Structures are given as C-alpha cells and as structure tokens.
C-alpha cells in the first residue's frame, strides 16, 4: 500500500531536497488528495466509494442500452432509472415502442416487471437477463455491493494503476456468486469487472468507460458488459443524464403506482 507521504512525494516528482521546500508542497498535496480512503485503500473504503459512484442514495437518470446480439444485430433501449434510499429502484422503459410503458420495480429483495398489455406486475428473479441483454436485472436495479458482498483486496491481480477487489456474495439475491473489480488507484473509479457463477465460471466481463462528472458526481458514463459464455454478445449501457439532487416520493415505489 502507498503511504500518503510517499504518494505525495511521488506526485510531486520527489525532487525536493530541502526540508523547508518539502513541507509546503506536502501540505498542498494532502489537500489535493481526492479522499483519504484512496490513499489508505481498504476493501471497505473502496466498496463504499464504488457504491457511492454507481448507486448514489437518491438519483434520477436517463440511460440507453444497446444490446449486440450474436447475429450481429443490435437492440436499442432507452429508459428512466430512479432510485430512492437503500433499495428502492424503478426503471421505466421509453423506447423502442415494443417496450414503452414496461416498468421494473425493486423494493428490498423483491423485483417485479409491469407489463402494460397485461396491466399488472409479475415477479422476476434478480439474475434474469435484463431485457435480453447481457446485464442481469440486479446489475441495473441492485447496486449495493457493500451489502451484497464481502470484499477483500487481492494482491495477485492488483496492477500499477488499479486496486483489485475480490468480492464473495453474502446473499443469494446478489447478482453474482463472485466478482472481481478493478478500481483506479488515482480516484477509486471502477475500470473493469469480472463476474463469476456458482461453479466459478467466468460469465460476464465489464469495462467501465468515459468517466465524467454528472453534477457533483463522477462516475463511468458507459459500461460495456461482455457475455463470456457467448463471445459474440455484449451490451453497452450509457448514462445520458444523471441527477443526484432529487428526492423521489416513496409513493412512486409501490406496485400500485406502476403503469401510472
């Protein structure tokens, strides 16, 4: 692990010989550090940071998913994603017309899909594929790695740029049995993920790209999820807009509100 002092001196080029000249830049360096958590990265702090970026407490986002299928064709979906508190999620599909009006709601461990033609909601499983793409439902509607996984830093896959976290599912509702996450040492942002099934088989691999600021929140603007069981298939999820300064009413996260 990199200590704050060495980290600071490295950032400054470590060229200071004189103690007096060294002290000032050191204070500056401390102030410039993104957060102490990165400097003294622990599995807990990294996971907290991951959850903070990927699933802020309250948010409202517009996202687009492009699913690349094995015959080379693509399917393009746009949706509105709303989150409230720890575990209330709602996804409202807007396009294409075949899914417009379809909604998904998660409250705690329960997940439903609302089918406009049936005018009712049907219970779903967390690990089902999300709209036939390569994300599963929990990838989109259950971003709380601190609660779902036990994490530890894994030195064997740590690189010069990134910490490597090995996550083991605590609950059956978690999206995968095991996850490996690579988080940038410089700012704790996720750059890569590998997702394993119960047998230890690599099922999905994600790349986190286009990190950018949405208001006060910096996070990847795009995730590319590859299907490792069928290499021709992958899905891209783009965040077109994201606001965290919202507080959606709790009444929006009940079954009866779906379709309204």
């Amino acid at each position, binding site marked *: 692990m990199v200590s704050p002092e060495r980290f600071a001196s490295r950032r400054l080029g470590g060229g200071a010989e004189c103690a007096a000249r060294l002290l000032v830049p050191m204070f500056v360096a401390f102030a410039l550090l993104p957060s102490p958590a990165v400097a003294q990265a622990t599995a807990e702090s990294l996971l907290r940071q991951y959850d903070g970026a990927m699933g802020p407490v309250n948010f409202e986002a517009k996202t687009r998913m492009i*699913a690349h*299928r*094995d*015959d080379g064709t693509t*399917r393009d979906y746009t949706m509105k994603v709303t989150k409230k508190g720890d575990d209330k999620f709602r996804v409202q599909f807007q396009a*294409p017309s*075949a*899914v417009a009006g*379809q909604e998904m709601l998660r409250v705690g461990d329960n997940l439903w*899909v609302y*089918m406009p*033609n*049936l005018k*009712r909601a*049907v*219970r*779903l*499983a967390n690990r*089902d*594929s999300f*709209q*036939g*793409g390569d994300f599963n439902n929990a990838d989109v509607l259950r971003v709380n790695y601190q609660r779902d996984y036990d994490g530890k830093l894994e030195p064997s896959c740590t690189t010069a740029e990134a910490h490597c976290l090995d996550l083991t599912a605590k609950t059956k509702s978690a999206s995968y049995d095991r996850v490996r996450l690579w988080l940038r040492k410089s700012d704790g942002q996720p750059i890569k993920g590998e997702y394993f099934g119960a047998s230890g088989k690599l099922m999905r691999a994600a790349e986190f790209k286009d990190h950018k600021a949405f208001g006060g929140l910096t996070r990847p603007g795009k995730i590319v999820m590859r299907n490792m069981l*069928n290499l021709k298939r992958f899905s891209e999820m783009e965040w077109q807009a994201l606001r965290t300064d919202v507080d959606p009413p709790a009444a929006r996260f009940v079954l009866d509100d779906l379709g309204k």
Partner: protein
Amino acid sequence: MMKALSLAKIAARNVLRNQRRTAITLAALVLGVGVMITVRGLLNGLQYSLVDGVVHGQTGAIQVHRKGYLKNVLASPLTLDFEDAPLRAKVAAVAGVKAVAPRILFPGMISLGDETIFLLNQAVDPALEFEVCPNRLTLIVDGGKFASAKGAPAKAQVADAMVVTVELDKALRAKPAAAGPAALLAPDRDGTLSGENVSLVGTMQLNSPGERKIGMVRLDVAQRLLKLEGRVTELVIDVHEIEAIPEVVAAIQAAVGPEFEVHTWEQVAPFVVDIRARQNAVLQIVATVFLLLMLLGVANTMLMSVLDRTREIGTMMAIGVRRRTIVGLFLLEATLIGALGGLLGGAVGAGMTAWLGARGLQIPLPGSSVPTMVRPFIGSGYLVGVVLLATAGALVFALYPAWRASRLRPVQALAGG
C-alpha cells in the same frame, strides 16, 4: 449311413435310460432357454413402447428446422424461424409422410399469483399436434380445454389455454396463490421481454427423462407473445412406415432445400438409443450367464453318465467299437438333450411371451412418471438362434466327458474303472 443311424438310435435309448437325470438336465435347459427368450421378449416390448412413446408422444418420427438449429438451441433459436404454412405444405406433399405439425420451442417464465418459475415451452397447434403425437393426448388431463382428439368437438377449447407438467403445477400452487390469471413471459424474437395472459387449464405427464418444468401452450398465443405471427421454429412429422424413415428423410430434405435440416427421432432423442444399447448389453450378460450355467449342467450330466457306464464302455471297446465312435455316441447324446431342451425351452419362452404380449404389462418406462402398457414379443430369428445355441453349446460342453470316455482302457473299464 446305417451306422450313423444306429448310433443315433443307441444315443436316444441312452438318453431315455436314466430318466431322472435326463429330466433334471432338461429342466435346467428349458428354464435357461425359456428365461432368455422371455426376458428378450419383455425387453422387445419395453423398447418398442419406449420408442413409440418418444416418436408418437414427443419428437415425431422426423423433425425439420432451419439449418444449425439443433446445434444452436442454447443461443437464440427464435431467430432461426421460418414461415409455417408454405414449408408445411411442401413437407406434407412428400410421399410417406402421414402428418405434419408446427411447433415453437422457447424458454420463458410462468407466473401465477406471487410465484414466477422458469420453464421450457412448447407451442403447438392442438388441431395438428396430436395427429403426429397421439400418445400425448393420453398424458394430458385438461377436460378437453387444450387438446381434443381427432374428430372430437373442439367446443370446450379455451383460446389462451396452456397446460404444464404436474411437477410445475405443484410448484406454482405451493403458496396459496392470489386469484387472477396466469401470465407467460418470454423474451420475444428481438430479446425484448414480452408477456401474455394464459389460462392454466390442466396438467400433463411426461413420458421421457429430462427437464420436468415444461409447459404446452397454443401456437397462436406463443406467436403473439414472441412476435412470430405465422412463423415457427420446428416441424414434426409422422410417417406411414417407421422402416421407411431414411427414404422419407431424404425426400423431405430434397423438398425443403439446403436452408433446412432434417433429423430422425434417433438424432433428436439420442437418449433412447443409449437406453436401448444399455438394456441390450445387460441382457447379453444375463443371457451368457444363464447359458453357461445350463451348459455346465449338461457337462455334469455327461460326466456322470461316463462314470456310470464305465463297464459298458469297456464292453463296447472289447467287442471292437472304435474310440471315435464312443466320442460320437456321447456327443450325440448331449446334442439330443441340448436340442430337446432347447426346443422345449423355446416353446415355453415363446408361449410365455405370447401370453404376456396378449395380456400386456403396465411398466413405468425410464424417466417416465406414468406406467406404460408394454406388450412383449419375440422375433423368430432370435427364437431359432437360442435353440441352436443351446444345442451347439451342449455339444461343445460334452467334448470333455466324451473324450474322457474314449480314453478309458478296456481292461480297467471292464473291471469297473
């Protein structure tokens, strides 16, 4: 010639001389041959029912898909679809084809009340499906709401009817379900999640091993659900003659063209072929053990006969009978016993098989949840083969006793060994 004939006469008399010993040996032979034939007959009936159950209850005799479908079942087989009516007409026109039915196979979820469960679906046309797979009708309990036999009024049929396996039905109703219709959900041809209301009107049993969570839904409901109007992914075909399948397959392939693949039931359900091969191998072992035991009985009888008749053999030799005639005599006796036992055993086995065949047996087939009527039968080739094998085996197993007899020294033999 005269000599051989008189030797045969002597052999026959010798066989009848010690009646108790002959009777015991014959009993062993009759039992052995009888059991071999009955077991084979039983297995024939079992295997016939297994194949019939699969062909007329599940796969049809022949299936047609878009090229690459069978190898691609795990990916997205819905995209390997085709226009139903034109292809079905082409196939129906092929000589030897008895009936054709369209199907779509697709994975999905069935939801009832608060329970949603994964299942494999077969979408079928109730008017056509049961002409290809009539055995399915007996497995469905639906009060005529989903399926109806040919000629029966279709009045009771429900438009969005669906039946699921008994196992799945039980799982769906495990929790006291909230009232309301069931919903069938599945990714459509584009991968988009889609749903339709269905009425669960009954249950079905399965007559083959494998996945137990299976549903059968009306083709029109599935086509609406999957955005596949007028299109299907599979044609199942019944033929007039099972033996003619290879020729019909070739004719269908020629009719539908290289864009499509044509498979026989053996290629679609290889497990049946496996089961059959395994059963035959087990029978082979059992039959061999039985054959060896009864032939050892023959050898024992002959050996005792030689010991008993030492003085007689000595006398024969003393009056100039040649050693090879002695060998011939004993071999002939064993062959006679073998032939007699084989014939009697064959008659008993064939009779037993015929009786069981006429009566029929209710036996649960491998992987099936319901007993099936099994009617044992036996081919004449196998029958003749077993009788010949028993006869020839008796001859071979008598070689050593006969040789022992021919090696006796006349003087010692006359003195009683």
